[in-house]
């Protein structure tokens, strides 16, 4: 029996061949690199599933190994993650930045003008509120996303508004094919009258005055409808002006007819007020209606979303956007851009929007015609007027805009608008309230 030994040369050849094997192995999903993305954990669970499906399709098509994490906004966990990644200069390649976070982190973000140019070429104009939140010094620093983006128009009880306030909300804002709506009389004065009537009827409007986004968004839209700015676009404090006083005078009447516990409302209190049948109107995305559909169908069948009331300067609809931004420290920026482009394609946006029953508002005006808003119900067409339609003559509005975002973010998160209303409700005078706001804002302008 011949004894065959392995020579040193043979061992070297064998070793180098073995080492080369992984370099030529069959292309797998990760062949074009790895990518990690932090998505917002959607309120509607089906939203995450739809996103996962699209990520899997992208991964397969582009041979990129994508890791998607869904980070909740409960307890501001998403904000904490963003802050930590910005400090550590490591983490996900792409993050979902809620409203103000793009401006807060602009120095750490990769400009995406190229992506926005391509998307705008394809889909047209972008929502003005998304533009305000996503553009920093003339450059797009993140791409507005539909996932989690929302408007907060009134969701009214059809029967209560008719019986107590004498308003036919379905006639004011009809569904698809319902002809022109009778919305001209839907002004802030009409809103006040309806609020008074419903309060007398024991079903006050569920409008909060806490330091939360729902409260602040509502108050911000009311200020804007009167042309009242607390800080102007140049960053000057403009509290002591006539429009602000006008809003205060209006609010002094409104707060009297809001629920006694309005100042301690959180972002779920208004939903509960509607779902439990305690309130005739709230301002919220359709999530409140969707929960009512699950928990209290009779109430869901009596809900109808309408647009915001009109003020001297227009009809402003509270609007918030999530934006997808790429960290500068991302090692795979090209794949990140490809993924954002893929997820921003109309068919993908529509698919996700349908899965969440129309909750997501697309950033491009051309996408505001998805069928889901016509079809979803009961009652059919209940959220048809949730996206801003041309006939509404409304403007999407971010509370505190057009103030410079670095000031606006502080005023927004500390609920300056809504706290002003809360102070009026607690019995403080208009002058005291305006003096307080002036003092607070001086602290933000530094």
């Amino acid at each position, binding site marked *: 029996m011949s004894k065959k030994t392995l020579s040193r040369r043979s061992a070297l050849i064998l070793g180098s061949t073995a080492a080369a094997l992984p370099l030529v192995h069959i292309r797998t999903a990760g062949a074009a690199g790895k990518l990690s993305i932090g998505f917002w954990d959607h309120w509607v669970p089906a939203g995450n599933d739809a996103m996962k499906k699209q990520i899997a399709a992208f991964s397969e098509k582009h041979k990129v190994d994508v890791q998607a994490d869904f980070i909740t906004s409960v307890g501001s966990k998403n904000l904490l993650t963003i802050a930590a990644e910005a400090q550590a200069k490591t983490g996900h390649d792409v993050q979902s930045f809620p409203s103000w976070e793009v401006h807060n982190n602009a120095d750490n973000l990769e400009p995406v003008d190229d992506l926005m140019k391509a998307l705008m070429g394809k889909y047209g104009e972008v929502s003005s509120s998304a533009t305000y939140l996503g553009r920093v010094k003339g450059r797009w620093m993140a791409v507005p996303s539909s996932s989690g983006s929302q408007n907060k128009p009134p969701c009214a009880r059809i029967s209560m508004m008719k019986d107590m306030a004498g308003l036919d909300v379905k006639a004011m804002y009809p569904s698809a094919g319902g002809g022109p709506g009778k919305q001209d009389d839907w002004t802030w004065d009409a809103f006040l009258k309806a609020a008074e009537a419903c309060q007398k009827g024991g079903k006050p409007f569920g409008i909060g005055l806490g*330091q*939360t986004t729902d409260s602040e968004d509502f108050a911000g839209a009311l200020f804007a409808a009167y042309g009242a700015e607390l800080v102007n676009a140049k960053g000057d404090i403009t509290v002591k002006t006539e429009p602000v006083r006008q809003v205060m005078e209006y609010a002094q009447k409104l707060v009297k007819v809001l629920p006694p516990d309005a100042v301690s409302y959180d972002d779920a209190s208004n939903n*509960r007020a509607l779902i*439990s049948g305690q309130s005739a109107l709230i301002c919220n995305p359709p999530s409140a209606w969707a929960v009512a559909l699950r928990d209290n169908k009779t109430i869901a069948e009596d809900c109808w979303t309408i647009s915001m009331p009109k003020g001297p300067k227009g009809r402003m609809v509270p609007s918030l956007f999530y934006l997808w931004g790429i960290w500068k420290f991302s090692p795979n920026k090209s794949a990140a851009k490809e993924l954002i482009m893929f997820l921003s394609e109309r068919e993908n946006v529509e698919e996700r929007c349908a899965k969440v029953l129309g909750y997501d508002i697309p950033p491009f005006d051309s996408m505001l015609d998805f069928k889901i808003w016509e079809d979803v119900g009961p009652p059919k067409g209940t959220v048809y007027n949730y996206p801003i339609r041309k006939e509404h003559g409304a403007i999407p509005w971010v509370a505190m805009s057009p103030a410079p975002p670095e000031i606006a973010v502080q005023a927004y998160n500390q609920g300056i608008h809504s706290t002003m209303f809360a102070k009026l409700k*607690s019995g403080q005078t208009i002058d005291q309230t305006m003096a307080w706001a002036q003092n607070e804002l001086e602290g933000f302008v530094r």
Partner: protein
Amino acid sequence: MADGTSTTIDLPRRVRAAGPKNSGFSRFLQRRSTIAVLLCSPLIVLVGALVIYPAFYAIYLSMLNKKMTQFIGFGNFTFLFKRDTFKLVIFQSTLFAVSAVLLKALLGFVLAHLMHNIPGRAQRIWRGLLLVPWVIPLALSCLGWWWLFDPSYSAFNWILGQFGIDPVPWLGRGWSARICMIVVNVWFGTPFFLIMYLAALKSVPEQLYEAASIDGASAMQKLRYVTLPMMRNIISITVLFSLIVTFADFDIVRLLTAGGPENMTHVFATYAFVSGIQSGDIPLGSAISLFMVPILGVAAFFVLRGVTQRTKEIGA
């Protein structure tokens, strides 16, 4: 051991005698102090990484401008002193911490005495039951309290309603919200005082009470001249520890009111979170969170010095 009963073992010399292979390094490794340091080193590393480094980093951050591009020294602190809201936060934090700690100490003291006088098995059962609030994760118990105080569907209001009393917006008015915060903190923190005081009570020698009884001391005199002096160190340390923890409280305020209404329930931690994380001004948030460090540091110094002095007096 320095109690005079131990025998010193000259380990290095014995090891040296065992053979010529023992180098200086191995002798160094076999020293008790070296072994002690080595055994503690994982903890030292952990404390360094999770406590000391973040603390110094927070100090560094608090001295930067909002964009974190420029060193501004104490600029953030001087800015805070000019803010009315921050003055409100100082007031609220102090009110919250001091009143909650005093109430916890008082309740804990009373409960510990009651508990001490319950015999045998029954005491164990009561002890277990009274520890429940402390054992439940604070976030969960806060949610429970929040349901009780809920703006619209409060359980307390339901009870009031049964007696024809109008509902109270517990968390919707500044002072009632402040009192609610304190109540929840006292509910959560009293068992800690209870267990510490109970342990202290059990360590007081029974002979002292017997001697006091022979001398004709009343119950109040026993409390004043026997119990309190024997518990002073435990009381000081417990109050100090609780004061630090209560000043740093976050969960209760964040979950129940998020600082509202009208900023009237903000404490340092919640205001730091709103300013630092939510409003994107991390240096200002760091400055807010560090604000109490010097004051609590000085308080800790004096309390611990008092404890050391009393220990020496007892030992002398």
